[in-house]
């Protein structure tokens, strides 16, 4: 009996029901919609409202006061503000110093760590620790170490006969101190990526280079670096963007001082938005920051894609 049933029902099952094209699209959309909704609410909406507020004179402290449209007024005000230019210059210096240090040290240490040796894993794990701390914690940690009276750095300086330096009380010294803290924290990230990139180069490539008579230095500059360039570029992009919007480290380390000389652009956004509550002006500044970061990313990503085509 069971045989009869299967035989009868089989042909019906074998013929697929005619399907509409749109139902496939609907299916795709329904699968994507949770992510899309989250993205719309978490990313798209804030960005649009940010751009919207940047055209108004508005304070989040006094929402009852009517929003006054000022057009490009906020932008005009920002661009003519010499203090803000000062912040861009300072941020630029900080980014250049940090990223250069981190890339150089990261690539050097990564190169040293690519070969397997006893204790490599332990060293590697220890090196990764700073990256796992919160930037605010790192900021306070280094603030104590850089303390001009009882900080360990000045203590070490005096033991070798140097004068005490007021690290956090002078703009240039504070810039150096912040760069040191940021480098301490984020060089491991470069080490991690650089090591992975270097280890991804097949041994035969190095053997071929050795047989071809290339010295270790020549091999490094003509083989190792160019072949890991795509990964190192990603590291560079991420570090550029991240250090460009650095805020919490300065908040904890220098508080923006002395004066406001170590305020980064992000610091200025936060201060304008949440200390002075000039929401419109802060929004405009945030938009400027956003445009710069997007522009930076686009240039680098395009470069990256071009390099990727070769491999």
């Amino acid at each position, binding site marked *: 009996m069971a045989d009869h049933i299967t035989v009868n029902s089989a042909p019906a099952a074998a013929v697929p029901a005619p399907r509409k094209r749109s139902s496939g699209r609907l299916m795709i959309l329904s699968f994507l919609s949770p992510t899309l909704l989250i993205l719309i609410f978490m990313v798209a909406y804030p960005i649009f409202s940010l751009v919207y507020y940047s055209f108004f004179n508005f304070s989040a402290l006094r929402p009852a006061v009517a929003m006054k449209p000022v057009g490009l007024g906020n932008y005009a005000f920002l661009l003519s503000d010499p203090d803000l230019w000062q912040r861009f210059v300072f941020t630029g210096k900080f980014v250049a110093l940090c990223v250069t240090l981190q890339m150089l040290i990261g690539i050097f240490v990564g190169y040293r760590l690519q070969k397997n040796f006893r204790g490599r894993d332990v060293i590697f794990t220890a090196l990764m620790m700073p990256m796992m701390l919160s930037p605010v914690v790192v900021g306070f940690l280094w603030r104590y170490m850089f303390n001009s009276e009882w900080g360990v750095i000045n203590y070490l300086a005096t033991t070798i006969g140097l004068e005490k330096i007021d690290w956090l009380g002078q703009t240039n010294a504070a810039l150096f101190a912040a760069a040191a803290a940021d480098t301490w924290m984020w060089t491991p990230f470069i080490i991690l990526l650089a090591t992975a990139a270097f280890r991804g180069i097949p041994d035969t490539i190095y*053997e071929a280079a050795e047989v*071809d008579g290339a*010295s270790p230095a020549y091999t490094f500059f003509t*083989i190792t670096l160019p072949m890991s360039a795509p990964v190192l570029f990603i590291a560079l992009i991420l570090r550029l963007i991240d250090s460009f919007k650095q805020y919490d480290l300065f908040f904890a380390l220098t508080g923006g001082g002395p004066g406001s000389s170590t305020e980064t652009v992000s610091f200025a956004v936060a201060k304008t938005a949440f200390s002075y509550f000039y929401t419109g002006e802060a929004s405009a500044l945030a938009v400027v920051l956003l445009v710069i970061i997007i522009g930076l990313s686009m240039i680098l990503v395009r470069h990256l894609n071009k390099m990727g085509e070769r491999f």
Partner: protein
Amino acid sequence: MAEIRLENLNIEFGAFKAVQDVNLTVKNGEFVVYLGPSGCGKTTTLRSIAGLVNATSGDIRFDGRRVNELSASERNIAMVFQFVSLYPHLKIRQNIAFPLKARGVAKAEIARKLDWVTEIFKLGDDLDRYPGALPPGARQKVALARAVIRDPAVLLLDEPLSAIDEQFREEMRWELGHLQRQLGVTTIYVTHDQREAMSLADRIVLMSDGRIVQVAEPDAMFFEPVSVFAGQFIGSPSMNLIDLVPNGDGLALGKEGGVRLTPEKDGVPPWVLKSRRPLKMGIRPLNIHLVEPQRQADGIDLPVDDVYSVGRERFFTFRIGDALCQGVDKRDAKAGGTAGRVRFLPQGFLFFDADTGRRVTGETMP
């Protein structure tokens, strides 16, 4: 160009002895092929000559000079690897010029040499492409061009053709042999493919388990193997190996249900009968032919299992006792396709000691 001498070469990785007591002299300009199954130590030997692996003991000499302590870059060798070793971020032109650039050769000289190898390898169209854009065969050609561009003393090739598809491999093999004769560079070539070895080599070095089994010219390797291993490794299909069992006053082929041999008629040399040790007989498939059933005089009746032809060659299998044997002959219209009777050509008989596997002849009979 150089003469290479390996003296008592031993290479160990921890407890594993990869290469044991290897002694060999490769003459200036000679094309020597290291042949053997995977893991026999042939590639390790090659890499030690290159300077990529350190010898545990023994000497490696180029023209009499000990080079053990020299790095790969100081030995003036060139090498082509099994898997792609071109620099993927450099154009073909830059890849080929790399060994010269790395050594600081003048630009004009590099350009001249580049023209020369481009001409030899006909690489004109590919010079400005990246390795990723070329098929594997063309990549190995570039690797070869990169190897010969600086006139190395020794050219080392580690299974350079094994990653290339069959059709192109044949062509590359021919070109490689031609090129080596043209340049006259001392060449050591590693392969597990006996056909490659037979067609390219001046001499073949057959290795097994880290030791040299036999060093011989291709013909000698084929016709006078020193052991069962050598006999079976060379030649395709592989050499048949059949037990020889005393049978009354004569001998039988195969243990159970074997075939009785009549020495005079079947061409078995008389000394075989007198051997005090158990022997095995090796016979290459090409020395076994199918015969027409009516010519009773020349054949042995054996159940032929399977017959198939590839072009003008006819392959067949049959059983002697419990051993499965293979034969190959020319498909000839006159002989017909009737199977069932095979003939052994006596000039192809080889005899081996059943216990040691060493080859035994009338002179060396135990």
